[in-house]
């Protein structure tokens, strides 16, 4: 714990006064009291964070130079873009030009200098100091992030891209970005978060995002995670939804040493709909953990969740999907499905749907399956001359495509498809085949 205290001391000494500073001290006290979660905590039963205590982290103070190969990892989306390099805002890599009226996209550090009340009121409204110990730590340590506001009726013509880029460093760095998004009534937008890095420095990124959807707002949220081999990530997304709002997530977790996410949706008024779609793709000894909690707090609210896990080698995956239907939340629908594909005998998936239903007029379903590749299909492909390894690769990709096919943002789709096909062990390498077909169409 002393290492955390030292780190906090540094942050606190350098912090600008104001709401962040006064809250930091209380937040850190709270964190010190609770400590890093352990597998004794029900929410962390399968995921051991002891690495966090073992590793000595420091925080980057200035923007690192970013190599061309690092830059090439940024998705080209023609988006408004905020890039944090090891947690530090990079004006050069970001693009916030030509914002439409009624649209604010700002790095958090900048927003609080002129809009302290608003930023301070949003950050922590859903994911507060008392949410859990890591959220408390986030409040204590946060230095940077993004504030996004899209006004009433605005339909954003381009996506908003938020990049957490880790670069090479002689020691492990940690950062705690905070994201706050207000989607005004009838507004529509797409946010693409990208966690990316390719150096074995063992950085830790803990991101907390709070998303507020006003009436009939539509927010499509991509979270694409392709961190470096040894990097750690803990993410929390908290969504508050008003009447007829629609939140759609595509969570594409393609590995990292330990990658844990929590999605929490508060469906607070009629017609609010949340759709969570995801892919967990783990290899080696990677540990991927997805927790979701959907609160049906009002009647006529809808949720569906569809997660696929693909685990190879000794990778371990966790899917824990919770749905809570309040007593008066009649005529809601909540569907959940988690299907997993184990490519090796030593890969392991722990999956646990949890439904707590206190209303009687509801439509709820959940299903989980864990299996291997269909050997009949493997044979059918081989019987046409396709290598066994390619056959298995094609079928693996096919499984992933059940989620990927819904991804309408081509750059994201193609990156994930090529990454899955190409990132599989040599014998699975299909990259050429896949990309060629895309060109042929």
């Amino acid at each position: 714990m002393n290492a955390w205290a030292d780190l906090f001391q540094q942050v606190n000494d350098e912090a600008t006064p104001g709401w962040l500073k006064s809250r930091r001290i209380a937040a850190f006290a709270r964190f010190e009291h609770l400590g890093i979660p352990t597998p004794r905590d029900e929410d962390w039963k399968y995921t051991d964070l002891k690495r966090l205590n073992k590793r000595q982290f420091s925080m980057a103070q200035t923007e690192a130079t970013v190599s061309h190969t690092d830059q090439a990892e940024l998705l080209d989306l023609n988006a408004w873009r905020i890039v944090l390099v090891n947690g530090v805002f990079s004006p050069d890599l970001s693009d916030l030009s030509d914002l439409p009226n009624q649209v604010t996209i700002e790095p958090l550090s900048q927003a609080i200098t002129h809009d302290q009340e608003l930023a301070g009121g949003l950050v922590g409204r859903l994911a507060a100091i008392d949410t859990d110990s890591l959220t408390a730590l986030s409040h204590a340590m946060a230095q940077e992030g993004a504030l996004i506001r899209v006004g009433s009726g605005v339909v954003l013509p381009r996506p908003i891209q938020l990049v957490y880029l880790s670069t090479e460093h002689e020691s492990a760095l940690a950062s705690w970005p905070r994201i706050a998004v207000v989607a005004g009534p009838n507004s529509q937008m797409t946010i693409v978060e990208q966690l990316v890095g390719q150096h074995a420095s063992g950085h830790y990124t803990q991101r907390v995002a709070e998303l507020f959807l006003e009436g009939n707002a539509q927010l499509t949220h991509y979270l694409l995670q392709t961190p470096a081999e040894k990097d750690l990530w803990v993410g929390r997304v908290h969504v508050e939804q008003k009447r007829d709002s629609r939140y759609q997530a595509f969570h594409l977790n393609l590995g990292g040493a330990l990658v844990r996410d929590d999605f929490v949706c508060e469906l607070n008024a009629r017609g609010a709909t949340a759709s969570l779609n995801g892919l967990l793709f783990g290899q080696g000894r990677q540990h991927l953990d997805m927790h979701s909690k959907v609160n049906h707090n009002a009647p006529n609210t809808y949720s569906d969740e569809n997660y696929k896990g693909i685990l190879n080698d000794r990778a371990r995956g966790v899917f824990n999907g919770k749905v809570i239907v309040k007593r008066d939340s009649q005529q809601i629908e909540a569907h959940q499905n988690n299907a997993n594909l184990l490519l090796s005998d030593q890969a392991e998936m722990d999956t646990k749907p949890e439904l707590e239903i206190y209303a009687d007029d509801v439509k709820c379903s959940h299903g989980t399956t864990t299996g291997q590749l269909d050997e009949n299909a493997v044979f059918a492909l081989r019987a046409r001359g396709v290598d066994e390894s390619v056959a298995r690769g094609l079928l693996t990709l096919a499984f992933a495509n059940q989620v990927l096919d819904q991804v309408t943002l081509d750059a994201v789709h193609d990156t994930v498809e090529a990454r899955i096909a190409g990132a599989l062990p040599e014998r699975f390498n299909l990259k050429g085949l896949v990309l060629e077909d895309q060109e042929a169409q």
Partner: protein
Amino acid sequence: MLEIKGLHAKVEGNEILKGLDLTINPGEVHAIMGPNGAGKSTLSAVLAGRDGYEVTAGEILFEGDNLLEMEVEDRARAGLMLAFQYPVEIPGVKNVYLLKAALNAQRAARGEAEIEAPAFMKLVREKLAQMKMDKSFLHRAVNEGFSGGEKKRNEILQMLVLEPKLAILDEIDSGLDIDALRVVADGVNSLRSEQRGVLMITHYQRLLDYIVPDVIHVLADGRIVKTGDKSLALELEARGYDWLLEADAS
């Protein structure tokens, strides 16, 4: 091109093939008929190399090579290919992927470069038209949601693109309407050549009107019990199999 000698094979410990001999020369079309459960599909599975079939005696030579020592994919690349009695649905794998992966695997085995995308698409469109299949089938998952007849057409489409030296067709006629039967038969006939062989398994004389075989065999109880020319099919149609089984037993 194919020589099967004294083949014995077991499935789940039961002997199904019990000393089967069969020789197919280049350019020949052979038909195998026989009662349900006689071992026809077992023979095709052993030829294609499916798991779970244990060959306990006999040998199979394909173009002089020991087929039983070859991997499944190597058999296909060498030119022996089976059109399945029950084609497998492969959700998520587009037909076009399968065709391309298969064709390139075959070319690689022959030391040829991968086919260029435009040439591939031209070839595939031509074969689709021949099978009277809409090109939307290319971007559908292999056999997924296909009707019974569409699945069979799709098997022959694969044969037309991959041009095996020996095509083994297991009940390619079952479940086909009259028009589809003609399209499938025309497809198979277009594959016939001096260099190629066809082995088709069927229960019905009707298919043999469209694809006229050089030789007809009757497979019963794990062995070839009768071999004749195309008139044998007519005789079987009239008399059934009992007379052959009795003659064989005595």
